[in-house]
């Protein structure tokens, strides 16, 4: 669905004010966005028509699950672009913020994920530069799954590794289980038996605990 830049600004601002819980008051929104409360009311009516917010008189606007997801994706894009501009292009943070604010509306999900990989933020986490982490973290784009939860024939791309023991992480890395690489699940019999996983041209058997340390962004086909 196409949503205008202006509406997207509202969504992101409601998210910033509520972090996905409770309502944003019309007056607060008006302050933040530098517009009149009347225009806020107008816009909120339009957004609730789109199904992104529910509006209760005097109490304010609340994001619907769909609106929350949309707003989070936008905010993440904003952060990714801001990081890209400051870290890679060496812009100062004020300029970066202004430019990222424009870019967040036009960049595609796919490009944002690619940029995210370049700057090294795990794709499924909400951005670490958020002032407060979103409580219900739904990431940008697809959600990653643990490798042991994938089924025969599933494919995907490793998003990150998560394990308390650094030695195990090192072992997985050295075997080629590295973020950014494609994996494919081969035959496996029982649910809790070892997974047969092809990464690159090599095939490995990983038991389910080992596989649970590898997070994969499943691909659609």
């Amino acid at each position, binding site marked *: 669905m196409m949503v205008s830049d202006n509406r997207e600004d509202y969504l992101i601002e409601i998210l910033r004010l509520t972090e996905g819980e409770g309502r944003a008051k019309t007056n607060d929104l008006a302050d933040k966005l530098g517009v009149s409360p009347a225009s806020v009311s107008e816009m909120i009516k339009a957004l609730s028509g789109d199904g992104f917010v529910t509006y209760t008189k005097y109490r304010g606007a609340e994001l619907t699950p769909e609106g929350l997801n949309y707003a989070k994706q936008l905010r993440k894009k904003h952060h990714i672009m801001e990081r890209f501009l400051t870290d890679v292009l060496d812009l100062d943070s004020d300029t970066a913020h202004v430019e990222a604010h424009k870019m967040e509306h036009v960049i595609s999900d796919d490009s944002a994920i690619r940029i995210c990989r370049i700057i090294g*933020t795990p794709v499924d986490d909400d951005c670490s530069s958020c002032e407060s982490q979103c409580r219900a973290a739904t990431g940008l784009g697809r959600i990653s799954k643990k490798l042991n939860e994938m089924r025969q024939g599933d494919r995907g791309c490793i998003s990150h590794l998560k394990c308390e023991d650094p030695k195990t992480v090192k072992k997985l890395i050295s075997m080629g289980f590295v973020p950014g690489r494609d994996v494919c699940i081969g035959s496996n019999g029982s649910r809790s038996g070892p997974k047969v996983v092809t990464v690159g041209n090599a*095939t490995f058997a990983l038991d389910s605990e080992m596989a649970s340390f590898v997070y994969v962004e499943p691909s659609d086909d």
Partner: protein
Amino acid sequence: MQDGMFTAALVGQPNVGKSSLFTRLTGVGVISSNYAGTTVTFEEAVVTRKGNKVRIYDLPGTYGMSGNSDDEEVVLEMVRDPDIDSVIVVADATNLQSSLVLCFEVIELGLPLILAVNKADEARKKYDTDYKELERILDVPVVPVSAKTAEGVDELADALCEGRGRRSTFQVRYEPHLEEAIDNIIGHLKKIRFDQRGTAVKLMEGTKTFIEGVMPATAEIASVLRDNFEREHNETSDIAIARERYSVSDAIVRKVQTRTQTKFSRKDRLSEMMITPSTGIPILIAVGLMLFVTMIFLGSLLDEAVSYVYDTLIGNSLADFGADKGGEMGRAIMLGIDGSIRAILTLVIPYIMVFYIILGVLEDTGYLPRAVVLVDRTMHHFGLHGGAFIPMIVGLGCNVPAIMAVRTIRSRREKLILTSLIVMCVPCSAQIAIIFGIVGKYSGFIYAFAILIVLLALMVVLGLGLNRFLKYEPSNLAMEIPDLSAPSLKNVLFKTWNRIKDFFVIAFPLLVVGSILLEIALSYSLMDFVIGPLSFLTVGMLGLPAAVILAFIVGVLRKEMAVGMLAIIAASTGIMELASFMGPEQFFVFGLVMAIYMPCLATIAVIWREMGWKETIAVSALSIGTAIAIGTLANWILMAF
């Protein structure tokens, strides 16, 4: 340089074929199989070509150069050695991505190298590979080879002997923050042996060996930089570095290699069947049955044939010759020699050789890692994982390499469990020969199978018990599954010879000398001081003739010697036919105790080296105790009927 000789080391990931290539290059035989981790120690040999001599080392396979495991430690130590002039990185043409990552690490450390891309013949069936382009990109000599067909091996030997290995100017550029940190560390590095950039990257990866190798202040800076990186990127620096290496490697492979065949091949389908439990478990059972049935039928057939040939050719001539030259004493000595030859010929050739031929075929097809997937869950009940299956199968041949293979396991607990199971419940080829060649022959095959059943039951009880008794540590399976491949007759026969030659060069002389000594001791009643006091055990508990204790004692030296001894002991009591020396039940008890009790000397030595004296004593004591207990129990039960 080492003793003035140019020295090179073969480095590569597991199962890329380093050992086969080493054998091809040097003509020195090293055991190679189609699964990861066949080589656990290193071999060396000298190659001479066009007047130049080069010493070559074959090292265990490593996925990376980080010193994560004992193997990686060994390799890292080795290539850090100033005596090593050049490294031959062995890559797998059918899995270039991973191989190149290891190659990057060697390049990064500033080591001169040649890249040997093995399995070039195999890769040709699936890919078009532009080795010239690869050489241009990596800026090192690239030689496509095949250890299987020997293609390119001469060229590699030439390149090596002409000293063509060189440092590369190729560099993996990491993302800006990492590069910044690397530059920062380089600024603090004082005099070091390795390339500065390479060392800085290793420090950013958090590699222990390198951290210990630099000044504490530098190590501290690196540690802060790693922490900062992780905080900023939500990803540890070692993962980030690996990610970049793989993306560079993937890009290179895309450039130099195009896939020509994408069909799901027959091999893939077969592999699938072996792994899927519904078809895989029947296959596993069939393979196991095939192994034993072939051994028993082919074994006893060969046993009879060999005995027949020996009887017609030699017969009693050795004993007669002895009696002729040295009277009663001479006859006794020659009888000992005769017994030894018979024991070696009728046990080693039929049973042990047949076993090793089958094992060789199983190893080379790549079937074993697939069986590992199937047994993984069961092994977890014993506190092990599926990977333990391979040392157990190898242990059916000989415990020594089986326990050396235990080295690839990281946790002490697992090592102890697996070692105990191998020593007690996995009969080695000499024990199998006793079970089938002696018990099978004199008590009947039902008894021989009964011993196997007892061993299996013991494994379950012991495994469950040790798993409960020892403090829990997690144990995880992560094992590469190689492509299936047709075994080569040459490699199988070569391995078989390599594994049984010890029986001829070590066991046979030992047996001859031992049997002569025993013969003399027996004729002068010198052994009575052992036989008498221990008869409570042999006669009282196990229900065996008192003198059999000597067979048990000698069996500690080598298990197959016990058989030769049995014949001599029987002869000393005036019984020439083994069949009338003991009854079927007694042979059964004898075989049972022999199968469980006490590892042989070579095994004790290797357990000591791998695990320490405490564990060695514990495992030995446990095995003796269990053997006597089960033997006694069997004796009582058999007597009751």
